[in-house]
């Protein structure tokens, strides 16, 4: 096998290995960054929901206490306020969602679905769990969810959620007597769940990965071509030339060519040595014929 093929085979092997390693490392890093970006978005949205809850409880509800005597205003409920705020956001960003998934809610729309109930039950069974992060497939793509437990820590929540008799009549009039009662202090009754689509950051990571790998491949190809050109011009062609002349000289054709070079590199030194060897051989042959 010719030298250049051996060289190219080794070079290809090295490039392929490097390409694979670089691809694997960069892919993992980009995917991790994308997930972290999504998770940070989810955390920010969770904090926004908590801020809405707090604002509603401390500033809005007290202003509407009198109106509540006449008609129950769900706008005074922190969970409703946070959910409605997110529903407004969803008009432009339908892949994002916020839900206060509850096992026994007053408002039926807050009832936990199957997977949400599983999350709530994890919180109920392991009270030390502060947060659960997970991924799930949705019709619109991969989604990351961040969930935190909803635990009854404020006794002010209980008048509406212990017994029907204790609850405001206006609330019973709106929601009925069947749902959202029997809650207890310190009980985990549900979970706040923020769902954020992963598609965009993942797609961005994939695009970045593709661009990176593409540019890496282009660099590898360029290096490959340049190395081949350099190898051929600086080594292969000169050695082939040397080999041709040496071959002719070995057959007694001392006029096949001269071992000339201006270079002082290793091949230049070899060329000069072979020139001296040819001169010595010619003189030796003359002495033998002499």
């Amino acid at each position, binding site marked *: 096998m010719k030298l250049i093929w051996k060289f190219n085979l080794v070079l290809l092997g090295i490039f392929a290995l490097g390409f694979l390693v670089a691809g694997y490392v960069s892919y993992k890093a980009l995917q991790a960054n994308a997930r972290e970006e999504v998770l940070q978005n989810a955390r920010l949205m969770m904090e926004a929901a908590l801020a809405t809850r707090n604002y509603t409880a401390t500033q809005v509800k007290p202003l509407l206490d009198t109106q509540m*005597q*006449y008609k129950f205003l769900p706008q005074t409920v922190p969970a409703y306020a946070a959910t409605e705020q997110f529903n407004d956001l969803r008009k432009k960003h339908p892949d994002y969602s916020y839900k206060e998934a509850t096992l026994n809610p007053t408002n039926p729309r807050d009832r936990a679905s199957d997977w949400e109930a599983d999350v709530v039950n994890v919180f109920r069974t392991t009270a030390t769990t502060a947060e659960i992060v997970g991924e799930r497939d949705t019709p619109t793509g991969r989604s990351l969810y961040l969930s935190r437990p909803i635990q009854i820590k404020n006794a002010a929540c209980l008048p509406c959620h212990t017994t029907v008799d204790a609850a405001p009549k206006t609330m019973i009039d709106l929601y009925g007597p069947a749902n959202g009662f029997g809650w207890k202090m310190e009980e985990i009754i549900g979970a706040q769940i923020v769902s954020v689509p992963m598609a965009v950051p993942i797609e961005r990571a994939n695009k970045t990965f593709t661009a990176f790998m593409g540019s890496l491949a282009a660099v590898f190809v360029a290096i490959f071509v340049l190395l081949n050109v350099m190898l051929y011009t600086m080594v292969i062609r000169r050695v082939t030339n040397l080999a041709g002349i040496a071959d002719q000289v070995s057959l007694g054709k001392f006029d096949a060519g001269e071992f000339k070079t201006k270079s002082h590199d290793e091949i230049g030194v070899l060329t000069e040595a072979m020139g001296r060897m040819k001169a010595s051989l010619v003189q030796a042959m003359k002495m033998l014929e002499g």
Partner: protein
Amino acid sequence: MTCWRDWLPISLWLFAGAGQAAVDAGVITLADGDSRLLRGATWYKLAPGVGLQDADILTGGARSQVQVEFTGGTLASFAGEGALMINVAKDGALALTLTAGALKVAVKGPPVRVRTTQFEASVADGIVVMRADGGELFVEAGSAKLSDASGAREAKRGEYWVKSAAGFATKPLAPKPFVESLPRNFLDPLPVLAPGLKSRAVPAVDRDITFAEAEPWLARDRAAFEKRFASRLRDPAFRKAVEPVVARYPSWDRMLHPEKYQPKQPQASQ
């Protein structure tokens, strides 16, 4: 042709109630729409800062609203087409008579009596909302004692009461039609506005009451309002309107036709 002496009784009536300086029982803090004040027999235009006195009558149109802050801290907001009469007893006890329209009263201090054509409510340190037309009352805070010819009953916070021909009925919740019929601001706490008034206002005179406007009040309490509106008999137009039905109002008949009440002179014998 009548003699000036014939007008003497009327003149006495004219000046009987005049010249007494009345103490303000409260002050108007809000006056929207075509609301007016009837003081004596004269209509006045309402404006924030106008003081209210005993026997003042507030009236309103469909879109009117008037809020009063009484001395002692009681707030009353009257809205809609109807009338609200204010009576203050010598001991300071406040009584409101609502003929029609909606009323929200936030009572502070001594109990306040609110009368409608169907029942009377006594409220002490509570807040009630009522509609005279439907005989409806809702206790927003505290409690109220409702009474009519059949007796008295206690209305508690959150209860809705309605008086019909069959008597009182109660529900634990104000029904939607009742809530929707109330002015929007009745669903919020009544604001305290008196401290923000820069000065008291003098009510501007509009015009005197006509007989057509006086008739419903005369039908409600003939004796009191005959006395109150007697000064209007000076007005020829008022007299002309009264004449066909003067028999209903004995004191006015006596004023306008004293000759009917003169002792008959015995006929000279021949």
